[in-house]
């Protein structure tokens, strides 16, 4: 059972109280984009076996969307953070680096 802390309302939420929203930090493309860019935005997914940045909605709580850093192989959660950001805050990056030395944040968005 996955338990995530909602960074907005501050409560620990069970996965049954949340809804998953897939990969986070996707770069959006809209009108004027090439087919390739739009395909990547709509369907291309990193789908890593390991560290994954993802969106969650505090569906049965405050209703706000937030982000989580989680390992898809071990289900370890490195932390959650508010969605109004283009990359994870430094404390999340530090928490990941402590467990996964050599890890680097991807260069996009």
């Amino acid at each position, binding site marked *: 059972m996955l338990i995530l802390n909602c960074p907005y309302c501050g409560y620990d939420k069970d996965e049954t109280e949340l809804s998953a929203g897939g990969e986070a930090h996707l770069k959006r493309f809209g009108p004027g984009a090439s087919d390739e860019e739009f395909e990547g935005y709509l369907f291309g997914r990193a789908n890593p076996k390991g560290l994954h940045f993802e969106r969650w909605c505090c569906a049965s709580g405050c209703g706000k969307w937030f982000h989580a850093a989680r390992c898809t*192989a071990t289900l370890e959660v490195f932390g959650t953070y508010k969605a109004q950001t283009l990359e994870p805050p430094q404390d999340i990056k530090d928490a990941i680096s402590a467990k996964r030395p050599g890890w680097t944040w991807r260069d996009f968005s």
Partner: protein
Amino acid sequence: MKRNSVFAVAREAMRQHSGWGRTWGNPEAQKAYDVVIIGAGGHGLATAYYLGKNFGITNVAVIEKGWLGGGNTGRNTTIIRSNYLQDPSAALYEKSRSLYETMSQDLNYNVMFSPRGVMMLAQTHHEVRGYQRTAHANSRQGVTTEFISPARVKELCPIMNIDGPRYPVLGALWQARGGSARHDAVAWGYARACTDMGMHILQKTEVTGITQSGGNVTGVETRLGHIACKKLGMVVAGHASVVANMAGFQLPIESVPLQALVSEPIKPCMDVVVMANTVHGYMSQSDKGEMVIGGGTDSYNAYTQRGSFHHLEETVRALIETFPMVSRLKMLRHWGGIVDVTGDRSPILSKTPLGNTFINCGWGTGGFKAIPGSGWGFAELMAKGESPLTDQFGLDRFRAGRFIDESVAAGVAH
């Protein structure tokens, strides 16, 4: 390989079954092969088999990270049906279903194909309309299905309660020629036939890297060293994104756990396969007497081969209204597999950005039924560069917006 027959059974009975031999080989790896297939599950082995049988390509290695058939081939609920809505899907799955009918004879190995019939329950008015539409589409596609009444559902499956207060049974889409088969035997039968043709199956051999030169793959890195190949097929289901990433391209796929469970064995009580997509549950009875129950997928990406416990509870709770006897059953064991789900819920059988590399993935929650058809089409794609069965299932459809949208028709449960 000795042929299996009634005479072989009699012969071995006379000598304490000492002469059966190994079902598949455990050879020393060569340095190079014409074709390397990554993944010795049903789809990978079927691909190798039809490469040999239909195209005479037998210098083939099938490389497997774990043990043969130990991934989703050994973890599914063994349902075989072809009642899909869209033409490309119906063609592919119906080819597959028809190959299952003759598989035991073709492979000389008993895969226990049991065409006991599959019914997909309509428990909302929306589903009634959806399945009637599918039945009409199937009649145009040459797939024999019919929409049947609640009374007929009760007649075919007497243990069902069709008057549930929450989800009454309003009818069902019935495919009399659907059914199930022994999943392990499918992998074992193909492996045996591949060994017979001189192919190599290399188990416990994880691919750790893919070497390239000039837009083509030159081979794969494994614990056995570098294995060169002229063509590469990736058939790794849940780990498709991981292997594609090694080759330097991304897929429109997300990997999530899907769970199943079986009850204690009981006396025969149900001789059809029932799927209830509204409540995300499906059930059949195995030859051992266990009730085999499939549930829904987890909502988030994971590679753990186990799922969240609450999904089991939801699945069983939902089935109890339709099958009251389930409430008295002890559940024996449960497990999970990692399914590769695409954006349009249809599989990918495709060329890749690398010239001599092909990918077969995205079967999501319903790959077992497609094993022979997928192998047949994918082998043709690998041998000739095109196949009428697979041409609609290319990766390019996501860029073109030409989806094969089976989400509505197939629901979540496969």
